[in-house]
Protein backbone atom coordinates (compact mmCIF):
# COMPACT_ATOMS: atom_id res chain seq x y z
CA UNK A 1 0.00 0.00 0.00
CA UNK A 2 1.32 3.43 -0.86
CA UNK A 3 1.21 6.36 1.48
CA UNK A 4 -1.34 8.93 0.32
CA UNK A 5 -2.11 12.46 1.51
CA UNK A 6 -5.69 11.43 2.28
CA UNK A 7 -5.06 10.03 5.78
CA UNK A 8 -8.68 9.98 6.86
CA UNK A 9 -9.64 8.17 3.69
CA UNK A 10 -6.88 5.67 4.36
CA UNK A 11 -8.03 5.08 7.92
CA UNK A 12 -11.60 4.55 6.73
CA UNK A 13 -10.32 2.10 4.15
CA UNK A 14 -8.28 0.25 6.79
CA UNK A 15 -11.32 -0.11 8.99
CA UNK A 16 -13.24 -1.83 6.19
CA UNK A 17 -10.98 -4.82 6.75
CA UNK A 18 -12.09 -6.96 9.68
CA UNK A 19 -8.52 -7.94 10.65
CA UNK A 20 -7.60 -4.27 10.99
CA UNK A 21 -10.68 -3.54 13.10
CA UNK A 22 -9.83 -6.50 15.33
CA UNK A 23 -6.25 -5.33 15.60
CA UNK A 24 -7.25 -1.78 16.53
CA UNK A 25 -9.79 -2.97 19.09
CA UNK A 26 -7.53 -5.49 20.78
CA UNK A 27 -4.56 -3.13 20.54
CA UNK A 28 -6.47 -0.35 22.25
CA UNK A 29 -7.63 -2.52 25.15
CA UNK A 30 -4.19 -4.01 25.61
CA UNK A 31 -2.40 -0.67 25.45
CA UNK A 32 -4.62 0.75 28.20
CA UNK A 33 -4.00 -2.22 30.49
CA UNK A 34 -0.29 -2.36 29.73
CA UNK A 35 0.04 1.35 30.43
CA UNK A 36 -1.57 1.07 33.87
CA UNK A 37 -0.01 -2.21 34.96
CA UNK A 38 3.33 -1.09 33.56
CA UNK A 39 3.35 1.90 35.90
CA UNK A 40 2.83 -0.38 38.91
CA UNK A 41 5.52 -2.72 37.59
CA UNK A 42 7.98 0.17 37.50
CA UNK A 43 6.96 1.50 40.88
CA UNK A 44 7.31 -1.91 42.50
CA UNK A 45 10.57 -2.46 40.64
CA UNK A 46 9.27 -5.70 39.20
CA UNK A 47 10.26 -5.32 35.56
CA UNK A 48 12.48 -8.36 35.83
CA UNK A 49 9.51 -10.31 37.17
CA UNK A 50 7.34 -9.13 34.28
CA UNK A 51 10.05 -10.17 31.87
CA UNK A 52 10.28 -13.59 33.49
CA UNK A 53 6.51 -14.01 33.43
CA UNK A 54 6.52 -13.44 29.69
CA UNK A 55 9.17 -16.11 29.31
CA UNK A 56 7.25 -18.66 31.34
CA UNK A 57 4.31 -17.67 29.17
CA UNK A 58 6.35 -18.83 26.21
CA UNK A 59 6.43 -22.33 27.68
CA UNK A 60 2.70 -22.14 28.32
CA UNK A 61 1.89 -20.96 24.83
CA UNK A 62 4.14 -23.58 23.25
CA UNK A 63 2.52 -26.24 25.42
CA UNK A 64 -0.96 -25.08 24.42
CA UNK A 65 -0.03 -25.27 20.75
CA UNK A 66 1.33 -28.77 21.37
CA UNK A 67 -1.93 -30.02 22.90
CA UNK A 68 -3.95 -28.20 20.28
CA UNK A 69 -5.62 -25.36 22.21
CA UNK A 70 -5.29 -21.60 21.98
CA UNK A 71 -1.90 -20.27 23.05
CA UNK A 72 -3.65 -17.65 25.20
CA UNK A 73 -4.87 -20.35 27.61
CA UNK A 74 -1.37 -21.70 27.99
CA UNK A 75 -0.10 -18.18 28.51
CA UNK A 76 -2.66 -17.39 31.20
CA UNK A 77 -2.14 -20.68 32.98
CA UNK A 78 1.63 -20.52 33.07
CA UNK A 79 1.97 -16.82 33.82
CA UNK A 80 -0.60 -16.96 36.62
CA UNK A 81 0.97 -20.00 38.17
CA UNK A 82 4.54 -18.78 37.97
CA UNK A 83 3.50 -15.28 39.03
CA UNK A 84 1.88 -16.58 42.21
CA UNK A 85 4.84 -18.84 42.83
CA UNK A 86 7.23 -15.90 42.52
CA UNK A 87 5.14 -13.80 44.88
CA UNK A 88 5.00 -16.56 47.50
CA UNK A 89 8.64 -17.61 47.23
CA UNK A 90 10.25 -14.23 47.54
CA UNK A 91 8.69 -12.30 50.40
CA UNK A 92 10.70 -9.15 50.11
CA UNK A 93 10.78 -7.51 46.70
CA UNK A 94 14.51 -6.97 46.84
CA UNK A 95 15.20 -10.66 47.31
CA UNK A 96 13.33 -11.92 44.29
CA UNK A 97 15.95 -11.90 41.55
CA UNK A 98 17.38 -15.33 42.22
CA UNK A 99 14.03 -17.09 42.49
CA UNK A 100 12.86 -15.41 39.32
CA UNK A 101 15.99 -16.31 37.40
CA UNK A 102 15.60 -19.91 38.47
CA UNK A 103 12.01 -20.17 37.27
CA UNK A 104 12.77 -18.25 34.07
CA UNK A 105 15.53 -20.53 32.86
CA UNK A 106 13.45 -23.63 33.56
CA UNK A 107 10.43 -22.23 31.71
CA UNK A 108 12.41 -21.36 28.61
CA UNK A 109 13.83 -24.86 28.54
CA UNK A 110 10.38 -26.30 28.86
CA UNK A 111 9.12 -24.15 26.00
CA UNK A 112 11.96 -25.37 23.84
CA UNK A 113 11.00 -28.96 24.57
CA UNK A 114 7.34 -28.36 23.68
CA UNK A 115 8.29 -26.76 20.40
CA UNK A 116 10.50 -29.70 19.58
CA UNK A 117 7.69 -32.15 20.34
CA UNK A 118 5.23 -30.26 18.17
CA UNK A 119 4.99 -31.57 14.62
CA UNK A 120 2.97 -28.81 12.99
CA UNK A 121 4.02 -25.43 11.67
CA UNK A 122 6.66 -24.94 14.31
CA UNK A 123 8.14 -21.81 12.84
CA UNK A 124 4.88 -19.86 12.52
CA UNK A 125 3.64 -20.70 16.00
CA UNK A 126 6.97 -19.93 17.62
CA UNK A 127 7.35 -16.74 15.68
CA UNK A 128 3.98 -15.33 16.67
CA UNK A 129 4.49 -16.19 20.34
CA UNK A 130 7.90 -14.62 20.42
CA UNK A 131 7.15 -11.49 18.43
CA UNK A 132 3.39 -11.07 18.47
CA UNK A 133 0.84 -11.28 15.69
CA UNK A 134 -1.77 -8.65 16.25
CA UNK A 135 -2.89 -8.63 12.62
CA UNK A 136 -3.91 -12.26 13.01
CA UNK A 137 -6.11 -11.71 16.06
CA UNK A 138 -9.60 -13.21 15.74
CA UNK A 139 -12.93 -11.66 16.72
CA UNK A 140 -13.21 -14.27 19.48
CA UNK A 141 -9.84 -13.26 20.84
CA UNK A 142 -10.95 -9.62 20.84
CA UNK A 143 -13.96 -10.59 22.92
CA UNK A 144 -11.75 -12.53 25.35
CA UNK A 145 -9.42 -9.56 25.57
CA UNK A 146 -12.36 -7.31 26.35
CA UNK A 147 -13.47 -9.57 29.22
CA UNK A 148 -9.94 -9.62 30.64
CA UNK A 149 -9.77 -5.85 30.21
CA UNK A 150 -12.91 -5.29 32.27
CA UNK A 151 -11.86 -7.75 34.97
CA UNK A 152 -8.45 -6.10 35.31
CA UNK A 153 -9.93 -2.62 35.54
CA UNK A 154 -12.26 -3.69 38.34
CA UNK A 155 -9.48 -5.39 40.32
CA UNK A 156 -7.13 -2.45 39.76
CA UNK A 157 -9.72 -0.01 41.07
CA UNK A 158 -10.15 -2.15 44.18
CA UNK A 159 -6.49 -2.60 45.06
CA UNK A 160 -4.99 0.58 43.61
CA UNK A 161 -4.19 2.40 46.85
CA UNK A 162 -2.88 -0.57 48.86
CA UNK A 163 -0.72 -1.60 45.88
CA UNK A 164 0.73 1.89 45.64
CA UNK A 165 1.22 2.10 49.39
CA UNK A 166 2.97 -1.24 49.71
CA UNK A 167 5.13 -0.37 46.70
CA UNK A 168 6.35 2.85 48.30
CA UNK A 169 6.44 1.81 51.93
CA UNK A 170 6.00 -1.89 52.52
CA UNK A 171 6.94 -1.80 56.22
CA UNK A 172 4.40 0.83 57.15
CA UNK A 173 1.75 -0.80 54.97
CA UNK A 174 2.37 -4.06 56.83
CA UNK A 175 2.12 -2.33 60.21
CA UNK A 176 -1.16 -0.78 59.04
CA UNK A 177 -2.55 -4.26 58.62
CA UNK A 178 -2.13 -4.69 54.87
CA UNK A 179 -1.74 -8.31 53.74
CA UNK A 180 1.63 -7.89 52.03
CA UNK A 181 1.83 -11.44 50.72
CA UNK A 182 -1.72 -11.29 49.42
CA UNK A 183 -1.02 -7.99 47.69
CA UNK A 184 2.08 -9.45 46.09
CA UNK A 185 0.06 -12.37 44.74
CA UNK A 186 -2.69 -10.07 43.45
CA UNK A 187 -0.10 -7.86 41.82
CA UNK A 188 1.66 -10.76 40.13
CA UNK A 189 -1.68 -12.09 38.87
CA UNK A 190 -2.45 -8.67 37.42
CA UNK A 191 0.90 -8.68 35.68
CA UNK A 192 0.29 -12.25 34.50
CA UNK A 193 -2.98 -11.33 32.80
CA UNK A 194 -1.53 -8.12 31.38
CA UNK A 195 1.44 -10.04 29.99
CA UNK A 196 -0.80 -12.69 28.45
CA UNK A 197 -2.79 -9.95 26.75
CA UNK A 198 0.24 -8.00 25.58
CA UNK A 199 1.96 -11.07 24.13
CA UNK A 200 -0.72 -11.08 21.43
CA UNK A 201 0.48 -7.66 20.27
CA UNK A 202 4.22 -7.59 20.75
CA UNK A 203 5.11 -11.14 21.71
CA UNK A 204 7.11 -12.57 24.57
CA UNK A 205 10.42 -11.03 23.61
CA UNK A 206 9.19 -7.51 22.97
CA UNK A 207 6.89 -7.37 25.99
CA UNK A 208 8.83 -4.49 27.56
CA UNK A 209 7.90 -2.17 24.72
CA UNK A 210 4.31 -2.09 25.96
CA UNK A 211 4.64 -3.07 29.59
CA UNK A 212 7.68 -1.13 30.71
CA UNK A 213 8.86 1.54 28.27
CA UNK A 214 5.67 3.66 28.24
CA UNK A 215 5.69 3.72 32.04
CA UNK A 216 9.41 4.44 32.07
CA UNK A 217 8.70 7.47 29.91
CA UNK A 218 5.81 8.49 32.15
CA UNK A 219 7.74 8.46 35.44
CA UNK A 220 10.25 10.84 33.86
CA UNK A 221 7.49 13.28 32.99
CA UNK A 222 5.37 13.31 36.13
CA UNK A 223 5.86 12.36 39.76
CA UNK A 224 2.12 12.22 40.40
CA UNK A 225 0.91 8.63 40.05
CA UNK A 226 -2.36 9.49 38.33
CA UNK A 227 -0.77 11.76 35.76
CA UNK A 228 2.02 9.26 35.19
CA UNK A 229 -0.51 6.48 34.58
CA UNK A 230 -2.31 8.75 32.13
CA UNK A 231 0.90 9.45 30.24
CA UNK A 232 1.87 5.79 30.27
CA UNK A 233 -1.49 4.76 28.81
CA UNK A 234 -1.29 7.58 26.27
CA UNK A 235 2.16 6.50 25.09
CA UNK A 236 1.15 2.84 24.82
CA UNK A 237 -2.00 3.78 22.89
CA UNK A 238 -0.23 6.16 20.54
CA UNK A 239 2.50 3.62 19.80
CA UNK A 240 -0.01 0.83 19.13
CA UNK A 241 -2.23 2.93 16.88
CA UNK A 242 0.67 4.50 15.01
CA UNK A 243 2.36 1.12 14.70
CA UNK A 244 -0.77 -0.39 13.14
CA UNK A 245 -1.18 2.64 10.93
CA UNK A 246 2.38 2.51 9.62
CA UNK A 247 2.16 -1.24 9.12
CA UNK A 248 -0.72 -0.60 6.75
CA UNK A 249 1.74 1.01 4.33
CA UNK A 250 4.95 -0.80 5.09
CA UNK A 251 5.52 -4.54 4.77
CA UNK A 252 7.28 -4.89 8.14
CA UNK A 253 5.95 -6.33 11.42
CA UNK A 254 3.71 -4.18 13.63
CA UNK A 255 5.71 -5.16 16.71
CA UNK A 256 8.79 -3.62 15.15
CA UNK A 257 7.03 -0.30 14.64
CA UNK A 258 5.56 -0.25 18.15
CA UNK A 259 8.91 -1.10 19.71
CA UNK A 260 10.71 1.55 17.67
CA UNK A 261 8.13 4.22 18.42
CA UNK A 262 8.28 3.79 22.20
CA UNK A 263 12.04 3.49 22.09
CA UNK A 264 12.32 6.65 19.99
CA UNK A 265 10.09 8.53 22.39
CA UNK A 266 12.07 7.26 25.36
CA UNK A 267 15.32 8.49 23.82
CA UNK A 268 13.72 11.83 22.99
CA UNK A 269 12.48 12.31 26.56
CA UNK A 270 15.85 11.40 28.05
CA UNK A 271 17.64 13.72 25.63
CA UNK A 272 15.19 16.52 26.27
CA UNK A 273 15.64 16.23 30.01
CA UNK A 274 19.40 16.10 29.65
CA UNK A 275 19.41 19.30 27.57
CA UNK A 276 17.03 20.92 30.04
CA UNK A 277 19.10 20.17 33.14
CA UNK A 278 22.25 21.28 31.34
CA UNK A 279 20.78 24.61 30.34
CA UNK A 280 19.45 25.12 33.87
CA UNK A 281 22.82 24.46 35.45
CA UNK A 282 24.51 26.73 32.89
CA UNK A 283 22.20 29.56 33.71
CA UNK A 284 22.99 29.15 37.38
CA UNK A 285 25.63 31.30 39.00
CA UNK A 286 29.05 30.01 37.85
CA UNK A 287 30.46 30.57 41.35
CA UNK A 288 28.24 27.70 42.50
CA UNK A 289 30.63 25.37 40.72
CA UNK A 290 33.41 26.39 43.05
CA UNK A 291 31.52 26.22 46.28
CA UNK A 292 31.06 23.15 48.42
CA UNK A 293 28.00 21.17 47.34
CA UNK A 294 25.10 21.37 49.76
CA UNK A 295 24.44 18.23 51.71
Amino acid at each position, binding site marked *: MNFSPDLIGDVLLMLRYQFMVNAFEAGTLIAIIAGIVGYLVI*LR*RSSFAAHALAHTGFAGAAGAVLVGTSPVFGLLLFTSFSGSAMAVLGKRATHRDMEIGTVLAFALGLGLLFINLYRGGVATATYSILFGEILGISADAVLGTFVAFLALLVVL*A*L*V*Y*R*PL*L*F*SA*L*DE*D*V*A*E*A*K*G*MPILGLNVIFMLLVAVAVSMAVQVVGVLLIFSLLVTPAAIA*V*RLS*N*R*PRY*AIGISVGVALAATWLGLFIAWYEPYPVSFFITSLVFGLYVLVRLGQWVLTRSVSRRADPSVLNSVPA*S
Partner: protein
Amino acid sequence: MLGARSPPSPSAAAPVVVARGLDAGYPPENVVWRDAEFTIERGEFVAVIGPNGAGKTTAFRLLLGLLPPLRGSLRVFDAPPERGSPKIGYVPQRHAIDFETHVRCFELVRLGHSGHRWGFPRSGRVEREAAWSALDAVGARSLADRPLSALSGGELQRIFLAEALVGTPELLLLDEPLSNLDLRRSRELVGVIHGVVRSHRITALLVAHDINPLIPYLDKVIYVANGKVASGAPGEVLTSERLSRLYGLPVEVLRDSRGHLVIVGGEEHTEGELGGGEDHHEGEASGGYGHSAGVP
Protein backbone atom coordinates in the same frame (compact mmCIF):
# COMPACT_ATOMS: atom_id res chain seq x y z
CA MET B 1 -6.65 16.84 61.26
CA LEU B 2 -3.86 17.67 63.61
CA GLY B 3 -5.76 20.62 64.98
CA ALA B 4 -8.88 19.80 66.92
CA ARG B 5 -8.65 16.61 68.90
CA SER B 6 -11.53 14.89 70.55
CA PRO B 7 -11.67 15.21 74.33
CA PRO B 8 -9.63 12.61 76.18
CA SER B 9 -11.32 9.26 76.46
CA PRO B 10 -12.13 7.84 79.92
CA SER B 11 -8.95 5.76 79.75
CA ALA B 12 -6.84 8.90 79.26
CA ALA B 13 -5.20 8.46 82.62
CA ALA B 14 -4.28 4.84 81.98
CA PRO B 15 -0.74 4.14 80.77
CA VAL B 16 -0.29 3.83 77.02
CA VAL B 17 1.93 0.76 77.22
CA VAL B 18 2.26 -1.76 80.03
CA ALA B 19 4.59 -4.76 79.79
CA ARG B 20 4.64 -7.38 82.53
CA GLY B 21 6.92 -10.42 82.51
CA LEU B 22 7.17 -10.09 78.75
CA ASP B 23 9.34 -12.43 76.65
CA ALA B 24 9.96 -11.66 72.99
CA GLY B 25 11.50 -13.59 70.16
CA TYR B 26 10.96 -15.70 67.13
CA PRO B 27 9.62 -19.19 67.79
CA PRO B 28 10.63 -21.82 68.44
CA GLU B 29 14.17 -21.26 69.71
CA ASN B 30 15.17 -17.65 69.35
CA VAL B 31 14.33 -15.69 72.50
CA VAL B 32 15.55 -12.12 72.04
CA TRP B 33 14.83 -10.83 75.54
CA ARG B 34 13.01 -12.03 78.64
CA ASP B 35 10.99 -10.76 81.54
CA ALA B 36 10.56 -7.16 80.43
CA GLU B 37 8.76 -4.81 82.80
CA PHE B 38 8.00 -1.29 81.72
CA THR B 39 5.23 1.25 81.62
CA ILE B 40 4.85 4.22 79.35
CA GLU B 41 2.53 6.99 80.44
CA ARG B 42 0.52 9.14 78.11
CA GLY B 43 2.52 11.97 76.58
CA GLU B 44 5.93 10.62 77.53
CA PHE B 45 8.93 11.13 75.26
CA VAL B 46 10.92 7.91 75.52
CA ALA B 47 14.27 6.82 74.10
CA VAL B 48 14.88 3.14 73.43
CA ILE B 49 18.60 2.43 73.55
CA GLY B 50 20.82 -0.62 73.40
CA PRO B 51 23.40 -2.32 71.20
CA ASN B 52 22.64 -3.50 67.67
CA GLY B 53 20.74 -6.74 67.53
CA ALA B 54 19.60 -6.50 71.16
CA GLY B 55 15.94 -6.45 70.19
CA LYS B 56 14.85 -2.82 70.01
CA THR B 57 13.07 -3.27 66.71
CA THR B 58 11.64 -6.51 68.07
CA ALA B 59 10.04 -4.47 70.83
CA PHE B 60 8.43 -2.26 68.18
CA ARG B 61 7.17 -5.30 66.31
CA LEU B 62 5.46 -6.45 69.49
CA LEU B 63 3.86 -3.07 70.07
CA LEU B 64 2.66 -3.01 66.47
CA GLY B 65 1.11 -6.43 66.80
CA LEU B 66 3.37 -7.83 64.09
CA LEU B 67 4.90 -10.33 66.50
CA PRO B 68 3.03 -12.07 69.32
CA PRO B 69 4.63 -12.13 72.79
CA LEU B 70 6.26 -15.43 73.68
CA ARG B 71 5.13 -15.08 77.26
CA GLY B 72 3.82 -12.49 79.67
CA SER B 73 1.47 -9.63 79.03
CA LEU B 74 1.69 -6.57 76.85
CA ARG B 75 -1.08 -4.02 76.78
CA VAL B 76 -1.24 -1.08 74.40
CA PHE B 77 -4.06 1.39 75.05
CA ASP B 78 -5.37 -1.05 77.61
CA ALA B 79 -5.78 -3.85 75.08
CA PRO B 80 -3.56 -6.49 73.48
CA PRO B 81 -1.53 -5.04 70.58
CA GLU B 82 -3.48 -5.08 67.36
CA ARG B 83 -1.94 -4.95 63.91
CA GLY B 84 -3.13 -1.97 61.92
CA SER B 85 -4.21 0.02 64.96
CA PRO B 86 -4.99 3.58 63.81
CA LYS B 87 -3.74 4.86 67.16
CA ILE B 88 -0.14 4.01 66.31
CA GLY B 89 2.06 5.88 63.86
CA TYR B 90 5.17 4.01 62.77
CA VAL B 91 8.35 5.11 61.06
CA PRO B 92 10.44 2.02 60.33
CA GLN B 93 14.17 2.03 60.17
CA ARG B 94 15.40 2.44 56.65
CA HIS B 95 18.48 3.69 55.03
CA ALA B 96 17.11 5.39 51.97
CA ILE B 97 14.38 5.44 49.37
CA ASP B 98 15.43 3.98 46.07
CA PHE B 99 16.92 6.78 43.99
CA GLU B 100 14.70 5.79 41.10
CA THR B 101 11.47 6.54 42.96
CA HIS B 102 9.95 9.30 40.86
CA VAL B 103 6.98 9.92 43.11
CA ARG B 104 6.40 13.20 44.88
CA CYS B 105 6.47 13.34 48.66
CA PHE B 106 2.89 14.45 48.91
CA GLU B 107 1.73 11.06 47.60
CA LEU B 108 3.50 9.13 50.35
CA VAL B 109 2.01 11.35 53.05
CA ARG B 110 -1.40 11.02 51.46
CA LEU B 111 -1.04 7.23 51.39
CA GLY B 112 -0.26 7.35 55.10
CA HIS B 113 -3.83 8.55 55.45
CA SER B 114 -5.69 6.29 53.06
CA GLY B 115 -3.20 3.84 51.55
CA HIS B 116 -4.66 1.00 53.58
CA ARG B 117 -8.15 1.47 52.16
CA TRP B 118 -9.52 -0.75 49.44
CA GLY B 119 -11.84 0.36 46.75
CA PHE B 120 -11.76 3.15 44.25
CA PRO B 121 -10.55 6.45 45.71
CA ARG B 122 -13.31 9.03 45.81
CA SER B 123 -12.94 12.82 45.94
CA GLY B 124 -10.04 12.80 48.36
CA ARG B 125 -10.40 16.35 49.65
CA VAL B 126 -10.28 15.24 53.27
CA GLU B 127 -7.14 13.22 52.69
CA ARG B 128 -5.45 16.05 50.79
CA GLU B 129 -6.14 18.46 53.64
CA ALA B 130 -4.93 15.92 56.17
CA ALA B 131 -1.74 15.47 54.18
CA TRP B 132 -1.13 19.21 53.96
CA SER B 133 -1.56 19.77 57.66
CA ALA B 134 0.73 16.84 58.47
CA LEU B 135 3.34 18.36 56.15
CA ASP B 136 2.87 21.72 57.88
CA ALA B 137 3.26 20.12 61.30
CA VAL B 138 6.75 18.90 60.39
CA GLY B 139 7.65 22.02 58.42
CA ALA B 140 7.84 20.19 55.11
CA ARG B 141 5.18 21.89 53.00
CA SER B 142 7.81 23.06 50.56
CA LEU B 143 8.92 19.47 49.93
CA ALA B 144 5.50 18.27 48.81
CA ASP B 145 6.17 18.35 45.08
CA ARG B 146 9.74 17.09 45.20
CA PRO B 147 10.29 13.45 44.20
CA LEU B 148 11.12 11.18 47.13
CA SER B 149 14.35 10.22 45.42
CA ALA B 150 15.63 13.81 45.57
CA LEU B 151 15.46 14.30 49.34
CA SER B 152 18.28 14.35 51.84
CA GLY B 153 18.20 12.06 54.86
CA GLY B 154 16.78 14.71 57.18
CA GLU B 155 14.12 15.76 54.68
CA LEU B 156 13.10 12.14 54.14
CA GLN B 157 12.70 11.63 57.88
CA ARG B 158 10.36 14.63 58.00
CA ILE B 159 8.27 13.15 55.22
CA PHE B 160 8.16 9.77 56.98
CA LEU B 161 7.14 11.57 60.15
CA ALA B 162 4.36 13.37 58.27
CA GLU B 163 3.29 10.04 56.79
CA ALA B 164 2.98 8.65 60.31
CA LEU B 165 1.26 11.76 61.70
CA VAL B 166 -1.36 12.03 58.99
CA GLY B 167 -3.36 9.22 60.58
CA THR B 168 -3.62 11.22 63.87
CA PRO B 169 -1.84 8.64 66.02
CA GLU B 170 -1.68 8.77 69.80
CA LEU B 171 1.53 6.76 69.95
CA LEU B 172 4.50 7.27 67.64
CA LEU B 173 7.12 4.58 67.15
CA LEU B 174 10.24 5.94 65.44
CA ASP B 175 12.93 3.41 64.62
CA GLU B 176 16.28 5.16 64.37
CA PRO B 177 15.06 8.39 62.86
CA LEU B 178 18.47 9.95 63.53
CA SER B 179 20.66 7.39 61.81
CA ASN B 180 22.63 8.88 58.92
CA LEU B 181 22.04 12.43 60.11
CA ASP B 182 24.79 14.77 61.19
CA LEU B 183 24.66 16.46 64.57
CA ARG B 184 22.92 19.61 63.41
CA ARG B 185 20.25 17.76 61.43
CA SER B 186 19.72 15.33 64.29
CA ARG B 187 19.04 18.23 66.63
CA GLU B 188 16.73 19.88 64.13
CA LEU B 189 14.76 16.69 63.61
CA VAL B 190 14.51 15.98 67.34
CA GLY B 191 13.21 19.53 67.77
CA VAL B 192 10.57 18.94 65.12
CA ILE B 193 9.55 15.58 66.56
CA HIS B 194 9.37 16.92 70.09
CA GLY B 195 7.38 19.97 69.00
CA VAL B 196 4.78 17.88 67.20
CA VAL B 197 4.56 15.31 69.94
CA ARG B 198 4.07 17.92 72.66
CA SER B 199 1.59 20.09 70.81
CA HIS B 200 -0.57 17.10 69.90
CA ARG B 201 -0.07 15.24 73.17
CA ILE B 202 1.32 12.19 71.41
CA THR B 203 3.35 9.59 73.24
CA ALA B 204 6.60 8.90 71.42
CA LEU B 205 9.18 6.11 71.47
CA LEU B 206 12.41 6.65 69.58
CA VAL B 207 15.07 4.06 68.95
CA ALA B 208 18.38 5.88 68.89
CA HIS B 209 22.05 5.07 68.90
CA ASP B 210 23.14 8.58 69.65
CA ILE B 211 20.94 9.85 72.43
CA ASN B 212 22.74 13.14 73.01
CA PRO B 213 20.33 15.12 70.82
CA LEU B 214 17.42 13.57 72.75
CA ILE B 215 18.64 14.16 76.28
CA PRO B 216 17.04 17.61 76.80
CA TYR B 217 13.58 16.21 76.03
CA LEU B 218 13.54 12.73 77.53
CA ASP B 219 11.01 11.63 80.10
CA LYS B 220 12.13 8.04 80.21
CA VAL B 221 14.75 5.69 78.83
CA ILE B 222 14.14 2.06 77.97
CA TYR B 223 17.24 0.04 77.49
CA VAL B 224 17.51 -3.30 75.81
CA ALA B 225 20.65 -5.38 76.25
CA ASN B 226 21.89 -8.81 77.22
CA GLY B 227 18.47 -10.34 76.75
CA LYS B 228 16.85 -7.93 79.18
CA VAL B 229 14.73 -4.84 78.99
CA ALA B 230 14.57 -2.22 81.70
CA SER B 231 13.44 1.34 82.01
CA GLY B 232 14.05 4.34 84.17
CA ALA B 233 14.23 8.08 84.36
CA PRO B 234 17.06 9.55 82.27
CA GLY B 235 18.88 10.62 85.44
CA GLU B 236 19.10 7.08 86.78
CA VAL B 237 19.76 5.25 83.52
CA LEU B 238 22.17 7.68 81.92
CA THR B 239 25.08 7.13 84.27
CA SER B 240 28.62 6.09 83.36
CA GLU B 241 28.23 2.84 85.22
CA ARG B 242 24.87 1.77 83.77
CA LEU B 243 25.77 2.67 80.21
CA SER B 244 29.17 1.03 80.38
CA ARG B 245 27.50 -2.17 81.49
CA LEU B 246 24.81 -1.78 78.84
CA TYR B 247 27.21 -1.49 75.93
CA GLY B 248 29.99 -3.56 77.43
CA LEU B 249 32.63 -0.90 76.94
CA PRO B 250 33.65 2.24 78.77
CA VAL B 251 31.08 5.01 78.41
CA GLU B 252 31.23 8.25 80.32
CA VAL B 253 28.43 10.58 81.18
CA LEU B 254 29.70 14.09 81.66
CA ARG B 255 28.19 17.48 82.30
CA ASP B 256 29.10 20.28 79.95
CA SER B 257 29.71 23.86 81.00
CA ARG B 258 26.00 24.59 80.95
CA GLY B 259 25.16 21.60 83.08
CA HIS B 260 23.82 19.47 80.22
CA LEU B 261 24.49 15.77 80.13
CA VAL B 262 26.85 14.57 77.44
CA ILE B 263 27.55 10.95 76.71
CA VAL B 264 30.98 10.02 75.46
CA GLY B 265 31.34 6.49 74.22
CA GLY B 266 34.15 4.16 73.29
CA GLU B 267 34.96 3.75 69.63
CA GLU B 268 34.91 0.00 69.30
CA HIS B 269 31.85 -2.11 69.56
CA THR B 270 31.32 -5.46 67.95
CA GLU B 271 27.83 -5.90 66.68
CA GLY B 272 25.63 -8.34 68.40
CA GLU B 273 28.17 -9.49 70.94
CA LEU B 274 26.01 -8.25 73.76
CA GLY B 275 22.68 -8.98 72.21
CA GLY B 276 20.50 -11.76 73.43
CA GLY B 277 19.57 -12.64 69.87
CA GLU B 278 19.77 -11.65 66.28
CA ASP B 279 17.16 -9.47 64.69
CA HIS B 280 17.01 -11.30 61.41
CA HIS B 281 13.97 -9.52 60.16
CA GLU B 282 14.81 -5.94 60.85
CA GLY B 283 18.17 -5.60 59.26
CA GLU B 284 19.16 -3.92 62.49
CA ALA B 285 22.37 -5.85 62.58
CA SER B 286 23.11 -5.42 58.91
CA GLY B 287 23.83 -1.74 58.80
CA GLY B 288 27.45 -1.96 59.77
CA TYR B 289 27.17 0.90 62.17
CA GLY B 290 29.89 0.26 64.67
CA HIS B 291 28.17 2.89 66.73
CA SER B 292 29.17 4.15 70.08
CA ALA B 293 26.71 5.26 72.65
CA GLY B 294 27.43 8.88 72.01
CA VAL B 295 29.16 11.38 69.86
CA PRO B 296 32.79 10.44 69.47
